[in-house]
């Protein structure tokens, strides 16, 4: 799935999806859930980062 496909699936622009991937933009919880649903993943799987 490309950034554009995922962006269209969740109703945002490719630029926004790119900014989220690069860490330039923190999405709202609503958008996080929409991304998780589109990818069939949980919030933990996608967004949780283990502390070093």
């Amino acid at each position, binding site marked *: 799935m*490309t*950034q*554009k496909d995922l962006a269209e699936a969740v*109703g*945002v*622009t*490719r*630029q*926004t999806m*790119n*900014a989220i991937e690069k860490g330039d*933009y923190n*999405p*709202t919880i*609503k*958008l996080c859930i929409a991304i998780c649903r589109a990818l069939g993943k949980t919030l933990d799987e996608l967004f949780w980062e283990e502390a070093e």
Partner: protein
Amino acid sequence: MFNLCKEYDERQQIIRGSICKHIMVIMGICVLINGIIEDAGFVWPDKFIASIILIMVPITIGTVEMNIRGVYLSKNRQVFFVVIFGLVALANVVLLISHSESLFTAGVITDYGEHAVLAICFLTIFIAAIIRLIYDKRMEKIEE
């Protein structure tokens, strides 16, 4: 108004809000500077064009900022807006070139000079929008 909001995603709305604040501040500064220079004896040859300049300068700065920060002019009509700004810029530039008058007379901007400022504003918006459009298309291709 509300339909327009649906056109932009959450990141676009946040950035647009921030740019609107910048435009308001710049417009306020422009009005203040205009008041100061008019009090000092400066006279605009055409007050109507001068008021359009006071609006267009902050909008131009805001539009350039929009393009730098990755905010599109319109979601589905990006090319349409670029063409419109391009045509307006082209018309202004052609008008300026066809009349070879001076921009300043005795250190004061002329009517022709005022139109030149407007032409520069439209041209700047057009160039910024087209650069962004090309950059986005290129990034889309790379990503695919």
